[in-house]
C-alpha cells in the first residue's frame, strides 16, 4: 500500500486514512485530533469512507477507533463491510468498537435534551480501547430530534469540545442534498461546515447514463490540498480515489532497457524495441492488425517469462487466443501456465474510472509487467470525454510508476480518418511510441502499411513498411516506390520478382563479358609472346647479317689487294 508516502513532518499532524489516493490529495490524511465532515447524498459512500478510515487506523497505524452508528445498525454495517475483505471480526476484539446509537423507535420525546449521556459512555469506552479515532455516522439522525437550530448547534459544539478534550481524530458524516449550500438556500447543518477543520464532499451523479462518483476536499485548515474534484470508485477493497500526479511527486524512474515488440524488423526500426515501462499506442482502422501487433508483443513478453495481461474489450479471452494463433502467435501454453492472463472487458460496466480501477486491480493481482489494452478507445465510450481523458492520463501515469510496459490499441474512424476515442483520450500526445497502421488500396488489393509516427527518445525509421500476416507470424517488408507510387502486396511482389530477374540477367551478362575479356586477354598475351619471339629472331638475324657483311667486305678488300699484288701493275695504295 502507498501509505508511507507522506513526509514524517506532515504525518505527525495528520492522521493517514490509508485510502488509496485520498492521502495524496490531502498530503497525509485527515487533521489529527480535529474533526472532519464528510457530507454527501444517499449512496455516496460516506459510511464506507468513514469506516475505512477506522479500519485502516486500527489495522495499519495502531490507532484503535470507535464507530458510532446513528442510522444503520452496526451489525448491518459490518455485514456490508465484510465484502471489502476487511478483518472486522478480528479487529473488533480489541481495536475497533461499534456503538449503536440509533434513537430507539419506542422513544418518546418531550422537550430539549443533550448528548451528554452518549459522551459519558463514549469517554469510558474510548479509555478502555485507547481509541485515537472516532466516527459519528449520520449525526443528522439524532440532531433532527432536537427542537431547534440553536439546540443542534449547541450539541454539535458540545461534541466538538468533547472531541478536542479527548484528542480524538473524528469524522462526522452528514447527509446533504443535491449541490452545495449557497447563500440563498443554506443547508440545515451549514454551520458545521464552518466549525470543522476539514470538509470532504462526496457526490454521485449520472453523466450520459454512466454513474460517476466524485470526491472533493472543500476545506482543510492549516494545510494545502488538491482542490479539484477527484473521481473515485468503491471497488473490491473499498474506497479508491483516482488521482493524477501531483506536482512535486517523485518522477517515475526511467530506464534504457528495451523490450521486444515481437516483430524483429519493428525492433530494428525502433532502435531495439520499445522502452521498458513505455506507453505504446497502436492506431488504425478496423482490421489493420492492431490486435495482432499487440499480441506479438504479448507473446514476446511471455517468451521472456514476464507476467503479461491482455485486456480485450472486443472479444472473449479464448477468442483472442484462437485468433492470434492463426497468425502464428501462440499464446495458449502461456495462458495455461498462467503467465498470461487474458481478460475480456466486455463485461466490465460502469464509468471509465471504474474500468480503470478494475483493470488496475486485475493487473496488480496478476503482477503484470506487460499490459495490453485492446482497444483503449473503449474507455471513452462510457461517460464524459473530459473524464475519459483523465482516465487515460491516470492509466499512463500508473503504468509508468508501476513500471509496466503498456501497449494500447486505438480505433480510428475509417471514414473520417480520425481516432474515434483519440479526440477524447488524447492518448496520442501522452504515449511514448505511436505506431500507425493503415490500408493501402491499390490494384484491387488492400494491404497493410505500418509507420512509426513518433517514438520518444529513439531514433526511428521514417519509412512505411508493409505488414504481412501469415501463419508463420508477423513480418515487415520493405515497400517499393515506383514513379512516386507506393507498391504493396502482389504489386510489390511483382516488382520484386521483376527486379530479381533483371538482376539475374545482368549478373549473367556480366559473367559472360568477363569470360570474353579473359579470352581476349589470353589471346593477346599469346600474340604478344609470338611477336616478342619474332622480334628476338629478327634481332639475331640482323646481327648475323651485320657480321657477314663486314667479313665479306674484308675478304673483298683483301682479295683486291692480293690481285693487285699479283698483277703488280699498281703500287700498293697508301692511305
Amino acid at each position, binding site marked *: 500500500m502507498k501509505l508511507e508516502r507522506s513526509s514524517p513532518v506532515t504525518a505527525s499532524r495528520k492522521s493517514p486514512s490509508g485510502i488509496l489516493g485520498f492521502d495524496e490529495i490531502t498530503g497525509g490524511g485527515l487533521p489529527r485530533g480535529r474533526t472532519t465532515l464528510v457530507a454527501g447524498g444517499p449512496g455516496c459512500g460516506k459510511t464506507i469512507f468513514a469506516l475505512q478510515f477506522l479500519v485502516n487506523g486500527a489495522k495499519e497505524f495502531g490507532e484503535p477507533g470507535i464507530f458510532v452508528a446513528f442510522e444503520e445498525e452496526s451489525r448491518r454495517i459490518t455485514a456490508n463491510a465484510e465484502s471489502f475483505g476487511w478483518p472486522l471480526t478480528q479487529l473488533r476484539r480489541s481495536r475497533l468498537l461499534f456503538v*449503536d*446509537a440509533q*434513537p*430507539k423507535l*419506542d*422513544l*418518546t*420525546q*418531550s*422537550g*430539549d*435534551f*443533550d*448528548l*451528554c*449521556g*452518549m459522551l*459519558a*459512555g463514549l*469517554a*469510558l*469506552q474510548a479509555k478502555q480501547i485507547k481509541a485515537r479515532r472516532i466516527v459519528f455516522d449520520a449525526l443528522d439522525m*439524532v440532531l433532527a*430530534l432536537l427542537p431547534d437550530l440553536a439546540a443542534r448547534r449547541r450539541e454539535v459544539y458540545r461534541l466538538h469540545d468533547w472531541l478536542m478534550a479527548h484528542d480524538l481524530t473524528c469524522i462526522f458524516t452528514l447527509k446533504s442534498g443535491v449541490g452545495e449550500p449557497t447563500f440563498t438556500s443554506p443547508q440545515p447543518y451549514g454551520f458545521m461546515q464552518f466549525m470543522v477543520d476539514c470538509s470532504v464532499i462526496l457526490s454521485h451523479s449520472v453523466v450520459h447514463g454512466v454513474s460517476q462518483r466524485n470526491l472533493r476536499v472543500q476545506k482543510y485548515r492549516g494545510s494545502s490540498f488538491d482542490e479539484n474534484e477527484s473521481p473515485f470508485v468503491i471497488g473490491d477493497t473499498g474506497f479508491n480515489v483516482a488521482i493524477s500526479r501531483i506536482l512535486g511527486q517523485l518522477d517515475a524512474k526511467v530506464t534504457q532497457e528495451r523490450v521486444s515488440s515481437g516483430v524483429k524488423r519493428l525492433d530494428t526500426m525502433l532502435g531495439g524495441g520499445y522502452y521498458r515501462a513505455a506507453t505504446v499506442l497502436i492506431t488504425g482502422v478496423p482490421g489493420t492488425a492492431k490486435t495482432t501487433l499487440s499480441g506479438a508483443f504479448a507473446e514476446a513478453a511471455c517468451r521472456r517469462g514476464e507476467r503479461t495481461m491482455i485486456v480485450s474489450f472486443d472479444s472473449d479471452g479464448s477468442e483472442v487466443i484462437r485468433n492470434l494463433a492463426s497468425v502464428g502467435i501462440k499464446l495458449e501454453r502461456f495462458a495455461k501456465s498462467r503467465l498470461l492472463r487474458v481478460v475480456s472487458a466486455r463485461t466490465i460496466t460502469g464509468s471509465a474510472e471504474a474500468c480503470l480501477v478494475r483493470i488496475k486491480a486485475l493487473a496488480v493481482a496478476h503482477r503484470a509487467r506487460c499490459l495490453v489494452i485492446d482497444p483503449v478507445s473503449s474507455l471513452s465510450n462510457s461517460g464524459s470525454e473530459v473524464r475519459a481523458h483523465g482516465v487515460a492520463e491516470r492509466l499512463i501515469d500508473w503504468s509508468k510508476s508501476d513500471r509496466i510496459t503498456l501497449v494500447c490499441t486505438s480505433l480510428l474512424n475509417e471514414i473520417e480518418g480520425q481516432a474515434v476515442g483519440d479526440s477524447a483520450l488524447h492518448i496520442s500526445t501522452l504515449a511514448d511510441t505511436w505506431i500507425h497502421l493503415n490500408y493501402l488500396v491499390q490494384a484491387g488489393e488492400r494491404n497493410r502499411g505500418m509507420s512509426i509516427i513518433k517514438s520518444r527518445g529513439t531514433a526511428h525509421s521514417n519509412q512505411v513498411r508493409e505488414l504481412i500476416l501469415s501463419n508463420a507470424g508477423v513480418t515487415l517488408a520493405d515497400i517499393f516506390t515506383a514513379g512516386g507510387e507506393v507498391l504493396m502486396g502482389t504489386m510489390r511482389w511483382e516488382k520484386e520478382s521483376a527486379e530479381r530477374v533483371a538482376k539475374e540477367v545482368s549478373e549473367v551478362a556480366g559473367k559472360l563479358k568477363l569470360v570474353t575479356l579473359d579470352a581476349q586477354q589470353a589471346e593477346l598475351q599469346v600474340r604478344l609472346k609470338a611477336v616478342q619471339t619474332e622480334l628476338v629472331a629478327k634481332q639475331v638475324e640482323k646481327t648475323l647479317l651485320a657480321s657477314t657483311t663486314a667479313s665479306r667486305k674484308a675478304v673483298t678488300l683483301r682479295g683486291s689487294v692480293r690481285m693487285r699484288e699479283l698483277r703488280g701493275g699498281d703500287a700498293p695504295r697508301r692511305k
Partner: protein
Amino acid sequence: MTAASRQAMYKFRLFVAADTLNSAQAASNLHALCKAHLAGRHEIEVVDVFKDPKRALAEGVRMTPTLLKLSPGPVRRIVGTLADVARVMQTLGLDAEAA
C-alpha cells in the same frame, strides 16, 4: 386503567448529565408530576451519567436527560426535559388516571 395499576408503585430511573440545565429541568418536572399524580406511590432513582457511565452504557442511554419508567407494565423511555406534561402522562399511562 385497572384498579391494580391504580395502586401500583411507580418506579422511575432518571439519567441526568450532572447539573446541566436540561437535566435539572427534567428532574424538577418529574418531581412536580409525581407530586401531583403519584403522591406516595413512586420511587425515583437519579443516575448521573458522568459519575456512572457504565450504567448509562448498560441501559443504552445516549441522550440526557432520559427517564425510564421501570414499572408497572412495560418499560417506557422518555427523552428530554419532560416539559410537555400531557405527552409524558400519556406515555406513562397516567392520562386515563388523571382524567
